[in-house]
């Protein structure tokens, strides 16, 4: 069933985004698994879309010891828990304009689970539309999931790669707040300071705060024409040039990564999850203010 609410927006890859109407029409489809990912851990237990499972960005997606993501075995166990096979269509949604849903989507791409979508508008839109919510946690039979080895290269970059990219004047997008970009603050407005010794941005990075890609009233992504005006016309980014997005730990930039890669069709865009908590604390790396 074509998703007419999304199809009219002019996106390069409209199939990765589905509307709340589409999700409502597919609630009982066993080949679709709804996954809620939030910053606020109370939200899922307080009520979620019927049939949705919870994936926590800290405990489910990150390695418990090292600063890294789960391994192949961890992903296999996660997918088994949420009853998903390689053929399952995973639809992510969550709080804060789908900020964390996009982060989970991105981590799933480290394992090549391309059969994935984002529900446009996330929790906020679903709730505002008065659609059904439940506290019932679905009971799912464990699935057999053949997980490949994690392959970071297609969607993730590391510090040394970013340094080379910056030195060759590569395209960088800093999606943090203007205050973080300018170095006048080292954390998000209204958030605690979680530690960076230096403020500023990676040399050459353009400042495009992540939330500009979303409509504030319902958390939906802006249509392609508005995204093009924001990223291409106003900030001079080129779809054809390799692009790296970053923020503080790589979660806000997952949202921008999603918008650039799928909605605008950037050919080569990656997320630097080390982001400012690594760059701003590393000895000797270049910084601009």
């Amino acid at each position: 069933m074509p998703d007419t609410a999304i199809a009219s927006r002019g996106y390069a890859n409209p199939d990765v985004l589905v509307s709340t109407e589409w999700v409502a029409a597919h609630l009982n489809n066993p080949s679709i698994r709804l996954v809620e990912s939030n910053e606020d851990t109370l939200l899922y237990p307080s009520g979620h879309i019927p049939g949705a499972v919870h994936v926590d960005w800290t405990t489910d997606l990150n390695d418990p010891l090292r600063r890294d993501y789960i391994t192949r075995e961890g992903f296999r166990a996660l997918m088994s828990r949420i009853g998903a096979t390689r053929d399952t269509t995973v639809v992510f949604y969550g709080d804060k304009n789908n900020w964390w849903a996009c982060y989970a989507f991105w981590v799933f791409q480290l394992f090549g689970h391309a059969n994935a979508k984002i529900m446009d508008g996330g929790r906020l839109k679903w709730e505002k539309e008065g659609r059904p919510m439940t506290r019932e946690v679905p009971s799912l039979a464990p699935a057999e999931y053949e997980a490949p080895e994690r392959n970071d290269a297609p969607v993730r970059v590391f510090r040394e790669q970013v340094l080379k990219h910056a030195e060759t004047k590569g395209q960088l997008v800093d999606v943090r707040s203007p205050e973080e970009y300018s170095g006048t603050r080292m954390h998000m407005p209204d958030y605690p300071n979680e530690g960076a010794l230096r403020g500023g941005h990676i040399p050459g990075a353009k400042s495009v705060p992540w939330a500009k890609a979303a409509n504030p009233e319902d958390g939906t992504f802006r249509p392609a024409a508005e995204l093009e005006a924001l990223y291409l016309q106003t900030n001079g980014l080129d779809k054809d040039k390799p692009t790296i997005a970053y923020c503080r730990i790589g979660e806000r930039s997952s949202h921008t990564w999603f918008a650039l890669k799928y909605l605008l069709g950037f050919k080569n865009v990656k997320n630097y999850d080390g982001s400012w908590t690594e760059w701003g604390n590393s000895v000797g790396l270049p910084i601009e203010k």
Partner: protein
Amino acid sequence: MAVPQKLQAVLDLFATFSDPADRTSLLLSYADQFKEVPREVATRPFGQEHLVPHCESEAYVWALRQPDGTLKLHFAVENPSGVSARALGAILDRSLSGLPPEQIAEVTPDIVEQIFRQNISMGKGMGLMSMVQAVRSLANAART
């Protein structure tokens, strides 16, 4: 000054639960008991002077002086995802309403960490502590 008795009882109750799932259930039970500010006290659009700063849940707070000199707290939470704000509002109302402003003004934002523990994350904690601070400010203003 000591934490008011009813609030201390709530903190003690949370302290007895070590299982995160139990603490989550307890928080949700408080959120379910949340009662929005009654129409006779305030109607939408709420005055911006009642808006809690830095709170993503768009929480509002009122402290009404009662004939006996105590305060009655009221809250509104406009963001439908403001479950934590509703839980904290219910806790503050149930444990502090009916106390004199001098006692309420002594409550400090560190109770947020004791109540929410692993359920506190990044931006949410700042907003919740700001709710407590807003209550303190209103209580201080009401002191005779």
